[in-house]
C-alpha cells in the first residue's frame, strides 16, 4: 500500500474507484442513459423549429440563424453539467451509501473530482448525439465554433460544477429535504444569464447582477459569434475570472456545510 493510497494524501486511485462506481450504475440502467439524451433532444428540436418558423418571417432572425439552437445547446451544457454532478451525488443518498463513503478513506476533494468527471461523462452521452442531430435537422454545427466552443464549454462547465458543489453541501447538511434544489437551482440562471436574449433587454439595475454571473458572458459571446461573426476573447477572460471566484466560494461553502453536517449528525441520517 503506497502512502498516496492510505488516506494521508490525495489519491487518483480513489477518484477512479468512485468514477467506476458511477459508471457501473449508469451502464446497469438503460432508462438512466435514455434520460440523458431524451430531454436535450426535445429541447433542441422545439427551439430549432421555433427559430426556423421565426426566421422565415423576420429579417433579423433570418440573419441570426442558429442563435436559438446555439443558446439551447449551451444552456444544456450548463444545466446538464450541474445535473450530472448533482444526480451522481443524489444516487449515494438514494442508495443510503453516503455513510459508507464518508467513513472510507475517500477525501471530500476526491469525491468532488469524481463527481466532476461523471458530470462530463453524463453530459457527453447526452450532448454529442444531440449536437449531431442539430446538424442533421437544422444545419447548425456546434463543433464548427472550434476554439470558441472550447472556451464556452470550459466556462459553462466550471459554473455548473460550482453550483453542483454548493448543492452537494446543502444535501449533506439538510438531507433529501434539499433535493428539489438539485433540480431547480439552475433555473434561477435562466432569466438572469440572458440565455435567449441580450443583456441589454434587462432593466439597468438587473444588468449589474447579470454581469456578475459567468454564463452571461458566454451567451453574449455566442451571440456575438453567430450574429456578428466575432469571437469576444475579452468576455471569456472575464467569465473565467468570475468562475474562479464562484468555484472558490462554492468549495468553501461545501466545506462549511460538511462541517455543519458533522456537528448536526446529518451524515448517517440523510433522509427527509
Amino acid at each position: 500500500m503506497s502512502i498516496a493510497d492510505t488516506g494521508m494524501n490525495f489519491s487518483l486511485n480513489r477518484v477512479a474507484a468512485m468514477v467506476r462506481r458511477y459508471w457501473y450504475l449508469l451502464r446497469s440502467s438503460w432508462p438512466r442513459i435514455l434520460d440523458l439524451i431524451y430531454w436535450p433532444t426535445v429541447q433542441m428540436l422545439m427551439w430549432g423549429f421555433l427559430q426556423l418558423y421565426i426566421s422565415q418571417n423576420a429579417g433579423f432572425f433570418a440573419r441570426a440563424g442558429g442563435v436559438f439552437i446555439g443558446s439551447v445547446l449551451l444552456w444544456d451544457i450548463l444545466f446538464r453539467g450541474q445535473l450530472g454532478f448533482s444526480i451522481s451525488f443524489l444516487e449515494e443518498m438514494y442508495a443510503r451509501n453516503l455513510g459508507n463513503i464518508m467513513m472510507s478513506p475517500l477525501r471530500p476533494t476526491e469525491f468532488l473530482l469524481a463527481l466532476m468527471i461523471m458530470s462530463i461523462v453524463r453530459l457527453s452521452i447526452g450532448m454529442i448525439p444531440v449536437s449531431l442531430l442539430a446538424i442533421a435537422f437544422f444545419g447548425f454545427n456546434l463543433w464548427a465554433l472550434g476554439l470558441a466552443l472550447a472556451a464556452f464549454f470550459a466556462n459553462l462547465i466550471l459554473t455548473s460544477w460550482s453550483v453542483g458543489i454548493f448543492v452537494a453541501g446543502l444535501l449533506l447538511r439538510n438531507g433529501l429535504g434539499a433535493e428539489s434544489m438539485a433540480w431547480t437551482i439552475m433555473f434561477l440562471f435562466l432569466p438572469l444569464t440572458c440565455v435567449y436574449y441580450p443583456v441589454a433587454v434587462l432593466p439597468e439595475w438587473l444588468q449589474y447582477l447579470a454581469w456578475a454571473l459567468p454564463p452571461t458572458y458566454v451567451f453574449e459571446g455566442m451571440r456575438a459569434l453567430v450574429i456578428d461573426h466575432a469571437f469576444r476573447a475579452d468576455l471569456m477572460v472575464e467569465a473565467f475570472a468570475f468562475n474562479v471566484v464562484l468555484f472558490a466560494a462554492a468549495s468553501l461553502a461545501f466545506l462549511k456545510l460538511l462541517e455543519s453536517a458533522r456537528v448536526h449528525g446529518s451524515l448517517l441520517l440523510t433522509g427527509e
Partner: protein
Amino acid sequence: MDAQNTSVIAVDRLVKRYKGVAAVDGISFRLARGTVTGLLGGNGAGKTTTIAMIMGLVTPTSGTVTVLGAEMPRERHRVLHRMNFESPYVDMPMRLTVRQNLSVFAQLYAVPDIGERIASLAADLDLIEFLDRPTGKLSAGQKTRVSLAKSLLNKPEVLLLDEPTASLDPDTADWVRSRLEQYCKDRGATVLLASHNMSEVERLCERVIIMKKGRIEDDDTPERLLSRYSRETLEEVFLDVARGRRQSEAAQ
C-alpha cells in the same frame, strides 16, 4: 506509557448535544488492542451516536475521541484506512453486483490484489454464488453478509459494528457471529459492537459497556456483571439497568 497511549480507542468525557438535548452525556472509556467490547443500551441510549463520533461522522460537542492515536474527526484521514464498520443505517448500492460493490470499496481502501481478497472473503462468508448478482436482489441475510464482507475488505484493526445481526434469522445470525469470532481471533482486531442481542454480546464480548440516556451505567466483564447483579443472563442484567434497579435490589 499511559492508558491513552496504549488504547486503540480512547473516549474521554465525550458529550454530544442536539438542540440542547444530550444524546451522549460525558462518557469515558478506553479499548485495548485485540479486545471485543459490547455496547448495550435501549433505543436512544446513545450507542449509535457514540459509534458515529468514533468513526468521525459526528463532531462531539465536547470531549475527545482518539482512534489509533488520531483525534476524530479532525485527524480521521490518518486512520480511516485502518478502520471499517457495518451498520443498519447504511446500504450498499442496490444496482451494482456484489463483486462490483466490493471491488469499488476495495479500491477506496487501497486493498492490494483486489480479486484475490474478494475471492477469499466470498469463500469465508459463503458469497461465491452471489458475487455476480445485483446486491438489491439478495435477501436480508445475504445483504448482511455482503456488508460484513465490505467491513472486512481492508482487514481493519478497528471494527465498529452497529447491530450486525439485526433482522437476521437465528441460524444466519449465529453463522455471522462465528465468522466475526474467527476474524477477531485471526487478526487481533479491536471491536466495538453495539447490539440489542444479549446472547450475541455474551458470546463475543469480553467486556460490556451498558448505556442509558447517554451515560454509562455499568462497565465490566460479562461474568462480573452476572455475579454483581446475581443474574443468570445478560438480558436480565440489561433489564435491571434499563428499569433502574440497583445491584442490591436486583440481588434480592
